[in-house]
């Protein structure tokens, strides 16, 4: 018997494609964000609000993943930005190859911001790097305060947690202090924004976060050119 050391990542093929995508996004100065949540937490609503508040001259595009239907793409297309649906046909997450394939006919030099809405799932998408600059986890107040403890991987790997549906707080037993505490237990110092995509409450804070990211990218880009 012989033991062969491998020390190789199981998803090395996905990671290789993701690294290529990341390099391309950097080359073109694109901020790419990967939105992850349970089904029904409000990823699509958040993207609708984000697109609705952006001038049409902004260079934004959206990839939205679902197991079946074009519903989300149809909802998002009305804002006038390029939107493409990725139907996985059963797969519970997006992977880097799907992103690569769906970006093939989009000229990246005409983009500044790429928003990727993952398949609704708090577990599997956390394993697959899509070449994004940051993962954003969306949680709604109709879910439990202990979600960050139950699904630590995604809360650990996300730069920002968006707590959605805060308009429902008067009607549901949900302790926002506790959820913040739990999220920061798993991910110390995690940034958290509370919003309601229904009333628009708190969205300014999210849009400011997004603007800061885009500004930082522009500055890095200018630095690189110099």
């Amino acid at each position, binding site marked *: *018997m*012989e033991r*062969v050391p491998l*020390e190789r*990542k*199981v998803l090395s093929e996905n990671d290789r494609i993701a690294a290529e995508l990341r390099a391309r996004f950097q080359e073109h100065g694109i901020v790419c964000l990967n939105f992850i949540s349970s089904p029904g937490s409000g990823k699509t609503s958040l993207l609708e609000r984000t697109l609705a508040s952006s001038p049409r001259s902004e260079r934004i595009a959206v990839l939205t993943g679902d197991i079946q239907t074009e519903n989300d793409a149809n909802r998002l297309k009305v804002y006038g930005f390029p939107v493409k649906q990725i139907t996985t046909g059963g797969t519970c997450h997006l992977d880097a190859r799907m992103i690569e394939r769906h970006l093939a006919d989009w000229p990246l030099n005409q983009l500044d911001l790429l928003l990727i809405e993952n398949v609704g799932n708090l577990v*599997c998408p*956390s*394993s697959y790097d899509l070449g994004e600059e940051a993962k954003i986890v969306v949680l709604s107040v109709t879910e439990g305060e202990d979600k960050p403890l139950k699904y630590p*991987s995604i809360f650990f790997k996300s730069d920002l947690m968006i707590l959605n549906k805060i308009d429902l707080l008067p009607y549901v037993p949900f302790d926002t202090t506790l959820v913040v505490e739990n999220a920061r237990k798993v991910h110390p110092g995690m940034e958290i924004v509370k919003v309601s995509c229904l009333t628009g409450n708190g969205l300014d804070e999210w849009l400011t976060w997004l603007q800061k990211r885009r500004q930082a990218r522009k500055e890095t880009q200018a630095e690189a050119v110099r």
Partner: protein
Amino acid sequence: MHELGIANSILEAVRTEVSRYPGQYATKVCVRIGELSAIDEEALRFSFEVLSRETDLEGLQLEVEFCPRKHRCRECGEVFIVRDYDIRCAQCASLQTECCGGDELAIAYLEVEEYGTSAVGTKSTE
């Protein structure tokens, strides 16, 4: 339930690797799974068995090495296992610690054997 895809990636990696050892076959693969990797060991074992059944890799043993979340202290350099989300340094109690382990999803090693010798996990020819 992405363990099926993970198991498939592991088996593919084993096939690629074992093809570099002519006259030998794989008996065991050891996979490192971190606490933060979002992989369920039972589901992975089930997928692994189903996918390897009636293939060239039938009988291949799967060993799982579980890796707890580890942090390194920025103040004193201590590396410690994080229990119950307590990220304070076990040595100096500083809160300035950073994650340095626990999201592993890697193939650690493979065991191969020459054809004709008795295999681990399969019946001896005697």
